[in-house]
């Protein structure tokens, strides 16, 4: 599997990633670094424990990181959660089903991690 094929499987934008990092190798390297990043898990944990403040911070981090790695789908979910949780955005918060979004993110993240591991092990 190439990084490009991996990106297609995990809802990422390979072209954007390569434009940022320059080489296929670096894209491959940084997607593996994503395995060690805890921000998506932190977001899920904090939300499940009812810690909204921590959930917002983790969502903010996950949003930035996924954007940088061009993990478009994850980034989109993290962004929606982040904005809904942002202090002062109560109106948006009221319209948003955060539970559902976190659930989707948890699922998508688990699937992405599994595929990245497969990519790592080949």
């Amino acid at each position, binding site marked *: 599997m190439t990084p490009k094929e991996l990106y297609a499987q995990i809802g990422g934008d390979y072209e*954007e990633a390569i*434009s*940022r*990092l*320059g080489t296929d190798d*670096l894209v491959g390297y*940084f997607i593996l*670094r*994503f395995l*060690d*990043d805890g*921000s998506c898990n932190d977001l899920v944990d904090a939300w499940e424990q009812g810690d909204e403040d921590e959930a917002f*911070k983790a969502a*903010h*981090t996950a*949003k*930035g*990181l996924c*954007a*940088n*790695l*061009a993990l478009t789908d994850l980034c989109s979910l993290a*962004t929606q959660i*982040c*904005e809904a949780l*942002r202090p002062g955005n109560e109106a948006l918060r009221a319209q948003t089903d955060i539970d559902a979004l976190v659930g989707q993110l948890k699922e998508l993240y688990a699937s992405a991690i599994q595929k990245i591991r497969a990519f790592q092990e080949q």
Partner: protein
Amino acid sequence: MVYSTKNDSGMPKRNVLIVEDNDVNREMLHAILANEFNVLEAKDGLEGLDQLRRNYGSLSLVLLDVYMPRCDGFEFLRQKRMDERFDSVPVIVTTASDLCEDEIECLRLGANDFVVKPYNVEIIVNRVNNIIRLRESASIVNQLTWDNLTELYSSEFFYRHMHDFLSNSQTGAYDMVCSEITNFKALSDRYGKGNCDRMLQELAKRLNFTLPNVVAGGRIANSTFAFLIEHQNNRDWTNTLMNVSHGLIATNMSLKFGIVENVDHGLAVSLTCDRAVIALEQVRETFGVSVAWYTEDLHAKQVREQVIVETMEQALAEKQFIVYYQPKYDLHTGQTGGAEALVRWIHPELGFVRPDFFIPLFERNGFITNLDYYVLEEACKEIVRCRENGLHVVPISVNVSRLDFDTEDLAQQIAHIADSHGVDHSLLHIEITETAYIDNPDLVVAALQELKDNGFIIELDDFGAGYSSLASLNMLPLDVMKLDMSIIRQAASLDDYRIVRSAIQMAGFLGLKTVAEGVETEEETKQLKELGCDMIQGYYFAKPLEQREFEEYVS
């Protein structure tokens, strides 16, 4: 930390600090910037502040994340703002927000710019480069504006700023006051650089405070300050300036002032300062006088000097320098016993230029050596002409300046010139002054000895004028002592020849012949003959003669 390598554009790599808690983001930013910059990393605001404290002098920029544990971006900016040492390090905030509040807050806290995640390589690299460039050029402007020691302007900025000021105030009347510590080198030697630097700082402050109605001040040279002030009418400067240097470490500081009144608004400020310094130079060596003004006379002299310096080489090539010969009368034989070659300059613009004007100038700029060789050549030709025309051939004395001794093979050069004309060495007398000996005794003694060994006759000129040293009489390999006209004048006016007699007797003891200069009367001639003087030179016997007159004279 130092700049270690160069970036793609060949410039030294600047040091950039990334403050970001997320490992992957930080590494990625590092990877993006590594080609262009040396990258340092900090995992949160506290680590970032620590890095800043250690490296602020060599850090060109900080890339700062906003949300971090322990110490976030806002706190980092607050802390940074409290220490002015860190002002020189700009900050770009990296943020994932789509909302403006965070950015506004960061800018309010002193961030210079922001970039949003996801990172766009081109935007980040260019933004970082632009901000670094802006900051560096601002810091260069800063360095160029202020003198790095005193609280005055740097010379360049002072000149430019005062030029703008004077151009914009055509009607106002201003004076330029330059002050210089004329013995700064000696003070620096004695008290050390650190102390003298502090003294300059203090002096600059005092001058700024003491001088009336100061527009601005600049440090225009190491120990020279210039102040533009509003014009002062008939001010008593002595009182104003008397206490300026009082109590500064060096009680023997020699502080001199040169003033240009009513500065010409159209003249370059640096030239105005030059004029003030020219005025100052008039009292540089004068004890007890500390102020001098740039006057019309000084200006005329400066202009003449400039014309002379600009035209001297052409003048030599065009033979504007005319060699005159002043015969010497031999008191024993009653005949012409020699002549001194003296140079006259008829300048096409300035007319007759006095030797006592151009010779000191040539001695300052080194041109005297060219002139001396020229006179030597002319003297040789004259000897040859006299010989070929069957005239009475007498030795001709030529002056050799102290500067000529800087030429390593002076003796050989002179011998070469004489030989190339077929002139017997004994017919060329070399006249030197004691100042030549004082400057560089060993070199001068060696060169004169070589000349003497080659058969040239050595004459000591101007004995008794200024500071005569008996030591030089002892050391120099002389043949002739020329008594300066001042002691002859004095002896004649006082009718007291004791000094002249002693000098002649001393010369006799030393085996030297004597020539008295500036002899103008029969009485003087009679006295000198009685005292055993060998020769006289002066208007009584003959004035300096042009070549043709001289040849008639010795025919």
